[in-house]
């Protein structure tokens, strides 16, 4: 290294194990899927969580925390193994597609600890972290129902995967909870990376009178946002609801406003941060499933929602309470 040496933020070790772990030798590896660490979705979120933790500890990138991007699914196993070979203390992977790779690799490196976000793998050295996407989606469904003037809202999914169906199901439930007469149209693009297709599907929905669309479609969703921007610039009143991260900025218009009504945030950053912290503390939840729900703020809407009226926010918060209390059971599948 040619830069200034990393500052060691030595904290008082609380117990022996932590002393062990907080030594300079603790290393975290992250394997992304094909989206890469700036996919504005779970890869980016995870990485942000890791970086946040590392910054707090004054870790140096490349030495104590690193990521490898996968070019395709066939890379998952070698990439996870690469960290295993180097005896990383904690290897994080995010995305449900990693399930099989994790199942294969984890037993081969019993001395390393692994964390999988979005899926469950039952291995003693794997911590599984999942989210209640349906709960967050329920809340944005409420927002959509409140915002729609045409009584017609839309959902656009990337590919037809069970995970995406959770978004879909929660959203429909949220809409119907507010007003059962609101119609929800839904379409899957069959692709997470085709903005043109997203734009076209959004266009047909808006033409049918839909005025709020919730997308869970990655890059394809870019086209959805684009279509909404176009319509608003042309004087139509339509909205998009973002996914995974706060997409407010992506929907920015030339007048400074945004077409993004709100976003269903999945706090993968929190998940990543927490798991590193727990591991360093010696509380690695190996073999356990951690579910992040509304209660833990694992899912939810952004703190700031310039496009939501106080009234809507109030309603959303009411539903949030009910869900946390268990008064409302949000479905995870849709027929």
């Amino acid at each position: 290294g040619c830069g200034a040496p990393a500052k060691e933020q030595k904290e008082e070790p609380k117990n022996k194990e932590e002393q062990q772990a907080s030594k300079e030798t603790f290393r975290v590896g992250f394997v992304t899927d094909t989206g890469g660490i700036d996919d504005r979705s779970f890869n980016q979120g995870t990485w942000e969580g890791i970086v946040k933790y590392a910054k707090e500890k004054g870790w140096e990138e490349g030495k104590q925390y690193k990521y490898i991007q996968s070019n395709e699914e066939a890379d998952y196993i070698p990439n996870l193994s690469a960290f295993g070979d180097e005896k990383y203390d904690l290897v994080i992977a995010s995305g449900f597609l990693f399930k099989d790779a994790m199942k294969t690799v984890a037993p081969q490196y019993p001395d390393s600890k692994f964390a999988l976000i979005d899926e469950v793998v039952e291995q003693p050295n794997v911590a599984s972290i999942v989210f209640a996407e349906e709960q967050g989606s329920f809340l944005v469904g409420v927002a959509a129902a409140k915002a729609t003037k045409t009584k017609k809202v839309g959902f656009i999914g990337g590919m037809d995967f069970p995970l995406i169906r959770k978004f879909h199901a929660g959203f429909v439930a949220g809409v119907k909870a507010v007003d059962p007469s609101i119609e929800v149209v839904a379409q899957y693009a069959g692709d997470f990376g085709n903005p043109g297709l997203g734009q076209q599907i959004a266009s047909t929905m808006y033409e049918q009178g839909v005025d709020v669309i919730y997308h869970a479609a990655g890059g394809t969703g870019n086209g959805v946002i684009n279509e909404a921007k176009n319509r608003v610039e042309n004087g139509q009143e339509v909205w998009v609801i973002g996914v995974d991260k706060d997409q407010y900025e992506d929907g920015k218009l030339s007048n400074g406003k945004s077409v993004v009504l709100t976003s269903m945030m999945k706090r993968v950053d929190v998940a990543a941060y927490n798991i590193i912290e727990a591991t360093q503390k010696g509380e690695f939840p190996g073999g356990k499933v951690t579910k992040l729900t509304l209660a833990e703020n694992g899912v939810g809407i952004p703190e700031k929602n310039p496009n939501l009226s106080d009234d809507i926010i109030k309603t959303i918060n009411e539903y949030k309470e009910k869900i946390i209390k268990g008064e409302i059971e949000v479905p995870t599948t849709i027929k």
Partner: protein
Amino acid sequence: MKKFLTNERNHKFLVPILSVLFGFLAGAIIMIFTGINPLDGYRALVKGVLGNPRKFGEWIVVSTPLMFTGLAVAFGFRTGLFNIGAEGQLIMGSLAAVAVGILVKMPKIIHLPLALLAAAVVGALWAFIPGILKAKFKVHEVVVTIMLNYTALHLVNYGIKILPGSTNTRTVNINSTASLSSEFLSKLTSHSRLHWGFVVAFIAALAFWYIIEKTTFGYELRAVGFNPHASEYAGMKVNRNIVLSMMISGAFAGLAGAMISIGTFDYARVIGGFEGYGFDGIAVALLGNNSGLGIVISAFLFGALKAGSSAMALAAVPKEIANIIMAFIVLFAAMNYGIKMFLLRLGKEEK
């Protein structure tokens, strides 16, 4: 030395070797320009494929399907056809192998060959479509194969879902009797996914060379590729040869799919877009000069760049550099005439 450089007979291997060297040189220049020490990058690359037995095993795993798609594209080229559709044939073949692996129960000695056969046959059938359309309706194979790639993608994603036990994202694992994977090989390379596919690939490359160069069938295919009119004059069935050639090309691509589905994974996955094996096959075939041996070598080279790119990324070299180096190697390979002239001039100046 000068004689060695200017002797045209040596150009056959000198030119590809130089293309590769120049490609790495160009990559190094780009790295230097962006503030990266190329030595670090290349050291990481070498470590990435040879660093330990597992990495070596993974290198072979990555290279195996490339050998097959390279052979597929090259087989087309040798007979005057441009098969851009290896990608689609590969996808079809991967599902076929898995379907046999899941639906059938029999001893390994029959089951595995049957799964491979299924992949080859289905790949061939998928390639039959552009073949027959070209022969019967004179429709350009390039357009049809491009369209069929997308068709295959969606068709296979659908097919995966209707197999028994499948989720929306993948099938169940195949019966182990149909799998190429091997405890032995995996142990040998400390838990890599190395499977028997590479042996099949070597056999295929050998078969490729033998069919094209040594058989009457290959003779016909080459004749039709070079001059369909003369072939017709000589009594060969031109249309039948076009269709057959396309099908064999498709069979190679289908086998590439099997390498992935019953070798690397042991199940079939719904995929959102092309993974690029078919397109990489074009580069592999061209760099390998459409010859069996050349393809094996260039598949391993490209495989190294693919397998080693994450290792480079770990050494803080953006992994795109691997793609850029590949592009330059292919570009320099395309410049073979220029390189020949360069060699000749080198020799002359010294005289």
